[in-house]
């Protein structure tokens, strides 16, 4: 932690809002993006992010300074998203459960036609939405691990701390998540790659 961060931290503990805002400034975009991938829509993501940041503000006394601040913050974000998802799960009436290959309900997402440049943007958007859907279908544990690893680029160790589970578990969750997604996007992945 830099000196200014330490100062903001101390003031935040005393309840000073502007100091807290300065403290979280460089992390809030990432926090939002994590929530976005987890919650799948901007409205929920915004709510979840704000909720998480407020929780962090309330419990800032509990931050012991042993793990990094970002890890602590993102952990709160993750947990908030998890809770929100579970809450929504209960109120969701239709379950678009798309299983993995071999399981009932499996519908491979079809590849859009390959066309040249003018449609490339559209195509890219299409692919992105395909990916989003695929992520949505992941079980929550795999989803969180995959988002943190492959989208946000955290290391295994960071993720292990964030999700509070051993590195081995993290690894298997990521692998499983990748497998599921691969099966869902198999057509797209065979040819598209790095062109997003």
């Amino acid at each position, binding site marked *: 932690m830099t000196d200014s961060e330490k100062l903001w931290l101390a003031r935040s503990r005393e309840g000073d*809002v502007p100091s807290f805002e300065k403290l979280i400034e460089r992390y809030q975009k990432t926090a939002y993006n994590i929530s976005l991938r987890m919650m799948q829509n*901007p409205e929920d993501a*915004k709510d979840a992010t704000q909720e998480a940041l407020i929780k962090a503000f*309330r419990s800032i*006394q509990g931050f012991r300074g042993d793990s990094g601040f970002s890890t602590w913050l993102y952990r709160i974000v993750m947990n908030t998203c998890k809770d929100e998802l579970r809450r929504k799960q209960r109120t969701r009436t239709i379950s678009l459960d798309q299983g993995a290959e071999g399981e009932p309900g499996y519908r491979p997402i079809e590849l859009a036609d390959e066309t040249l440049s003018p449609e490339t943007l559209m195509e890219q958007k299409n692919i992105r939405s395909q990916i989003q859907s695929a992520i949505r279908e992941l079980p929550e544990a795999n989803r969180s691990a995959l988002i943190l690893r492959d*989208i946000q680029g955290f290391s*295994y160790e960071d993720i292990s701390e964030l999700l509070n589970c051993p590195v081995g578990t993290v690894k298997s969750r990521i692998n499983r998540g990748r497998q599921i997604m691969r099966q869902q996007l198999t057509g797209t*992945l*065979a040819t598209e790659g790095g062109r*997003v």
Partner: protein
Amino acid sequence: MICKFDQNMIQDYLDERLSPEAKAQVDQHLAECETCRREWVEMNNLKQLLFGLPEEELPEGFQEELHEKLLDAAVEKSEAPKKRKWGNGHFRRHIKAYGAVAAVVLVGVVGFNAAMDQLNKGAFENVAPMMAATAPAEPVPSPQRTMGTEDTAVGMAPEAEKKAMAPNSADSSSMPAYADGGVVATAPPVTTGAGLQERKVIWNGSAQLETVNYDKTLNDLTALAKGLGGYVENMDTSLIRSETPGEKSLKQGSITLRIPQGKFMETYQGLEKYGKVTNQSMSSEDITLQYRDTYNQATNLEVREKQLRQIMTQAKTVPDILAVDSELSKVRGEINQLKGTLQQWDQLVQLSRITLSITEVRSVGTQVSGLDKNLFTRTAEGFIKSINGVVALGENLVVVMAALLPWLAIGGVLVWAFMKSNRKHNWLKRFKS
């Protein structure tokens, strides 16, 4: 076609967590294996896609909304009852005040204690002796006596009673835990021999005595124990060096008596004869159940032993004989152990323990044995004592002042020097408003 190559390794390869050697291995396999290569390509593309997802901007109004919510939360925080009083701000801000209060309290306590010490030093106060647990007691239901007092095969003679005086014999058995506190029984039941019929109760008493003649008291107590058929378990004495020169040093010490159970009560209640009793207490522990259990255990084992001996006569072969013999010695060993415990208990039961701590004093007020003093005498004594206390305090103050004198002198010199220099250079200018 499913490839048997370690998929975990491929995943690690994807995450670039492999050593160069392992990486080379995977490279080679991918070159050879169609299935894995295809899978790898797709995985890698997925990874790229995911990583390539653009980072979205915060939605409009996000920070303003958050700001509002944070302010609300901050208000809640300050209004909520402070569970932790020593939160950083509060304590730190008032640390000076707290410190000052603590210091004053500390000085007050120390000063008070010192004053009390002075008052108490002169003569020993006539604290009404605390006769704990001497209220007249309910009679204990008389022990059940069955037929006779047969000495059973356990065969333990009450050797303890015949023991001569054994000074300083360190008894290894520790003081038993005190069972009941307040109820005092009348004469404890008499034990005859080592039978099971009576209740087995261990009595313990303790008291603090004051006397003007330590040696006499000690001798009296020793004679008492001996005369009753008991003995002195241990005693030790030490000297308190007197502070005023020329005065005899006072003795203090302790003595532990073993008194036959039957005489315990009268001895305990008659301690006043030997000194001024300032503190007294007693307790008992009923070990009848444990005793009975152990006794029965031993008896059963003896029966077993008999049976084994029977078997022994019938044993023909050497291995048989050896087997029975080893069993016999085991059983005998257990019996001896149990008997030993019973013996110990018998000793504790038959000879109650009274521990006395004795302090020699110069004078014990007006009377040694009298417990009732009339109000006037006590008032007079109290008054005299307080005067003595005040005088002593005054004396000490004088001593302290004398001791501080050199420091005050030095301090005074420094202050004078400073004032002089101040007149010259006017250091204190800025304090004058």
